[in-house]
């Protein structure tokens, strides 16, 4: 228990320092937020333009698709907020030898990596996600009862863990490949496409997005559970299972990576 308290205290200290640095340049922070907001809006614009030409997409209406889109942003935003520094592992830390610092301290290395940085841009994703989910509530397309609401919160945190696990997995490849940024980017980008109903894809693709890089379980599948009364809550249960399994795999790889780590030259 002592260690947990210690880590919490540490996280608070590190985060407070980080926020102080951010607040020093408020304009930059706002611009960053705006930029990210923009990125999300484009996705909606795409849907909107498409639906000018068609009545529905394989049975799904625009409003429903917008809910899926918004719902997808929330776990993504949560992960983005806390674990953005993982990207640096994939792109730089391993190569530059900056990792040495982490290894020399008597603290869990993964913790050090993520405590170093909080990403305020993520608030853009969370904001858009919340707005769109609320909009969907007002349009009456989402089921609202005790079970669904509870599972909603479970799902978004499980979803965030899946995001983190996938990021950590690909980032850890950097210990062997020196730079794994491009792979991480591609894997991460696949999440964008799992915002759409997976029925539109061929079997192979559906399998990939559902079980290999399981973003379908973060967005589409739980979202359809929240919209349609005849789907089973098992979807969320599986999502949690996947979250734990993938986290375990990713962390094991990361840990192995720190042992294989070769540091930089002089």
């Amino acid at each position, binding site marked *: 228990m002592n260690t947990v308290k210690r880590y919490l205290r540490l996280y608070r200290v590190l985060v407070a320092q980080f926020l102080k640095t951010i607040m020093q*340049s408020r*304009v*930059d922070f706002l*611009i*960053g*937020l*705006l*930029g*990210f907001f*923009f*990125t999300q*809006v*484009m996705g909606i*614009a*795409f849907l909107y*333009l*498409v639906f*000018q*030409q*068609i*009545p*529905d*997409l*394989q049975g799904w209406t625009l409003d429903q698709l917008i809910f899926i889109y918004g719902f997808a942003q929330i776990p993504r935003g949560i992960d983005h907020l806390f674990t953005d520094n993982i990207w640096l592992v994939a792109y730089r830390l391993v190569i530059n030898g900056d990792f040495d610092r982490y290894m020399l301290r008597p603290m869990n290395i993964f913790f050090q990596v993520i405590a170093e940085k909080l990403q305020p*841009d993520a608030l853009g994703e969370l904001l858009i996600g919340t707005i769109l989910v609320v909009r969907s509530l007002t349009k009456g397309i989402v089921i609202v009862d005790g079970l669904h609401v509870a599972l909603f919160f479970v799902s978004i945190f499980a979803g965030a863990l899946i995001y983190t696990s996938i990021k950590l997995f690909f980032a850890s490849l950097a210990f*062997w*490949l*020196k*730079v*794994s940024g*491009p*792979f991480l980017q*591609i*894997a991460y*980008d*696949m999440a964008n*496409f799992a915002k*759409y109903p997976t*029925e*539109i*894809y*061929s079997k192979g*693709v559906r399998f*990939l997005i559902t079980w290999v890089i399981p973003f379908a379980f973060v967005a589409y599948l739980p979202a359809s559970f929240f919209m349609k009364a005849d789907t089973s809550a098992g979807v969320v249960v599986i999502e949690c299972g996947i979250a734990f399994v993938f986290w375990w795999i990713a962390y094991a790889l990361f840990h192995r990576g720190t042992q294989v780590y070769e540091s930089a030259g002089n």
Partner: protein
Amino acid sequence: MRKGLRIYLPFAANELKRQLAYKGAFYLFILVHLFGSFISYYLWIAIYGSSEKEVIGGLTQSEMVVYVFMVYVTASIVTASISTIVSDDVVKGTVAMNLIKPIDYRLSLIAMASGNMVYRFLVPSVLIWIGLEIYKIKVLGLAPVSIAGIFLYLVSCVMSFLIYVLFDFCFGMLAFFTTYIFGMRMAKEALLGFLTGQLIPISFFPAAMQRVFDFLPFSSIVYTPVMIYLGKYTGETLVFMMLRQAAWVVFLYVAGSLIWRQVTKRLVVLGG
């Protein structure tokens, strides 16, 4: 002048070498990068499947399939990003070092981007292009592209490349005026993906917006070359479109030079 340009060859060669050095990334890159376009492909099939019309936004389903992959091929050739390098140089203060060297900073960046472009063309664009063309003829039953068509497409691509690089250069220099352009770069990339026709053909936009786009360089970057390839531009329209591209190249070149002059005057170096 020609001899002078040769100084920049090492930049291109180095960039190419650097990319080739990351062996693992090279192999996987080919495979996984295609996923994005395939998913777009499925999406469009579903969209056409949900519509009663055969032609949406001026394209049939087959043409849209070609569109999706040609956008990939074109974008990968054309969008070699240098604004990151520029803004990095500003933040790190190394931009001053670049001014000391007896070479044109912008030209060296363009040369670097060219090396990047060659790499991106070889990996995997050429293969995909060929594969797409075969698929187009055998499966979709469309007519093969003519030699003239290929030539025009490539010329258009080169101009697109220049438009993009010159634009990115101007954009990168924003780093001189605001210390933090990361957010703006994200906005730029999102906007560009949209406005260049990568996400959705320009023809899908409401007519009023399309008129506005006519005055912006973005549609010339990806949409124009792909439309040329699809044979959608002929005769006068074709000439007009390509001339428009050329005009943008000139305009952005001049704009870049002007901004550069302003910037070197008030060099605020951070860090260093």
